[in-house]
């Protein structure tokens, strides 16, 4: 099997020494609608740029994605959170990039867990919701943070995600 080609700004291009481009998108509680949009957008961008993406979250958040994208144009493989954590703990799964969407304290705990379990992976935590500042301040482990007040409208969040990953901003 051949590796996907390197594309400037792609995830695999941003991780020195890592070319496999395995990515994990960990979703939090689906209560904030912006998460759904940004998850589909990130999935689309990562897969377009050649990453091997797995999406994980609780059954509700995964079902929201399945219903939103029935032909799987944007989403790819998905796995419930407990199973994914089990595979990572047991070293049956590793990733080059882990993105955690967080708008509550529980998601920060999951991000901290990923930091501990995946010490050499690039970890990007997207902190959003009504009041993301205190949540972002609670993070005292190494990671990249994207912080934006966003509950319903994902546009500013999308702009920051584009900036961090070097993706060309769409005008639509």
């Amino acid at each position, binding site marked *: 099997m051949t590796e996907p080609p390197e594309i400037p700004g792609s995830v695999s291009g941003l991780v020195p020494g890592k070319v496999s481009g395995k990515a994990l998108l960990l*979703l*939090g*509680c*689906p*209560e904030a609608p912006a998460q759904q949009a940004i998850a589909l957008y990130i999935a689309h961008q990562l897969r377009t740029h050649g990453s091997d993406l797995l999406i994980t*979250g*609780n059954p*509700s*958040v995964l079902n929201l994605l399945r219903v939103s994208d029935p032909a799987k144009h944007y989403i790819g493989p998905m796995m419930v*959170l*407990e199973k994914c*954590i*089990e595979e*990572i*703990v047991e070293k049956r799964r590793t990733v080059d990039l882990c993105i955690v969407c967080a708008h*509550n*304290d*529980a*998601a*920060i*705990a*999951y991000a*901290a*867990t990923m930091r*501990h*379990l995946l010490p050499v992976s690039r970890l990007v935590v997207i902190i959003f919701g009504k009041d993301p500042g205190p949540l972002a301040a*609670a993070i*005292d*482990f190494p990671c990249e943070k994207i912080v934006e007040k966003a509950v319903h409208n994902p546009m500013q969040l999308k702009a920051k995600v584009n900036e961090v990953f070097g993706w060309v901003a769409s005008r639509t």
Partner: protein
Amino acid sequence: MGCIENLKYEMLLPLGASFKECREYVEKNFAEVWYVDPGYKLFDEYIIGLPPIALGLDGGKIVFPYTKPCHGTYLLRIEDDDEAARVRRTARKKK
């Protein structure tokens, strides 16, 4: 909750407690405190949180944080002599 839901548990802190509140509660209220890292298996579930994660022991009773994405962190107490003994064998004791 998963398998833990089927066990007989007490909830020590209300829903939505933060993981830091859970750690502080355990350290303040239990004489015997042990620490584990995220991914430690307890009652067949992987513990989530910011390391080090504090567990309180009182005889055969174990007090531990249990995190779910939509609910935050619960601080639960479950009595199980075998699991308590395993924690004492495998976790790090507070000095």
